[in-house]
């Protein structure tokens, strides 16, 4: 049986949207897939050594379950983002859901390849030393070299 392949494009850098790429990649690797994730735009945040900047915002997210109904103008107050992030992280821990750091480590351990978008690094003046080691940097063409041969290709 030939090895199956999965490619994911991770474009978002919020706590909720950090889960799909890392869960799918680590699980696919456990199922013996060869996996690559291409991190572009805000997705690059997920490759930082320091993941404390990965937060969740209650704004513009009407589907987010809230302990009490919260008007938009209240959700926009200073400190609400940090509070929502803290509450979400507590819930994640309580329910036995892995942290983003754990899932990322599981991906690395199981051989998932991370590609950082070179253009985004340049565009936002990101510094490579802020990102974890072992990342390959490239562009769209680099992505397609692998994506073109995959069984599943997802945009997150």
């Amino acid at each position, binding site marked *: 049986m030939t090895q199956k392949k999965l490619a994911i494009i991770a474009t978002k850098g919020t706590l909720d949207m950090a889960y799909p790429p890392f869960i799918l990649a680590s699980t696919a690797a456990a*199922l013996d897939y060869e996996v690559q994730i291409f991190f572009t735009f805000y997705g690059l945040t997920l490759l930082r050594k320091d993941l404390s900047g990965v937060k969740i915002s209650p704004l513009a997210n009407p589907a987010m379950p809230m302990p009490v109904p919260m008007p938009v103008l209240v959700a926009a107050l200073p400190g609400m983002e940090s509070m929502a992030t803290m509450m979400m992280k507590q819930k994640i821990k309580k*329910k036995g859901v892995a942290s983003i750091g754990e899932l990322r480590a599981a991906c690395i351990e199981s051989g998932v390849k991370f590609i950082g978008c070179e253009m985004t690094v340049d565009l936002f003046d990101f510094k490579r030393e802020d990102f974890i080691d072992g990342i390959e940097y490239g562009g769209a063409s680099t992505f397609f070299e692998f994506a073109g041969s995959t069984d599943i290709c997802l945009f997150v």
Partner: protein
Amino acid sequence: MDFNKELDARGLNCPLPILKTKKALGELTTGQVLKVISTDAGSVKDMEAFAKQTGNELLSSMPEGKEYVFFLKKK
């Protein structure tokens, strides 16, 4: 059922039981049996799917109270 290794995945949520199962199987040799105990109801279907896709045989899968017990034979 006899087993060579036991994995306690209690309290862990998707996809951790599967990730830890994969890792634990890696420490066994072909034909050896891994016992996994989980509390995640979703792991029942996931473990079946894992076994089917990886070729490790799911010898048994049964609920025990609020827990789920699996026996997997390493490919």
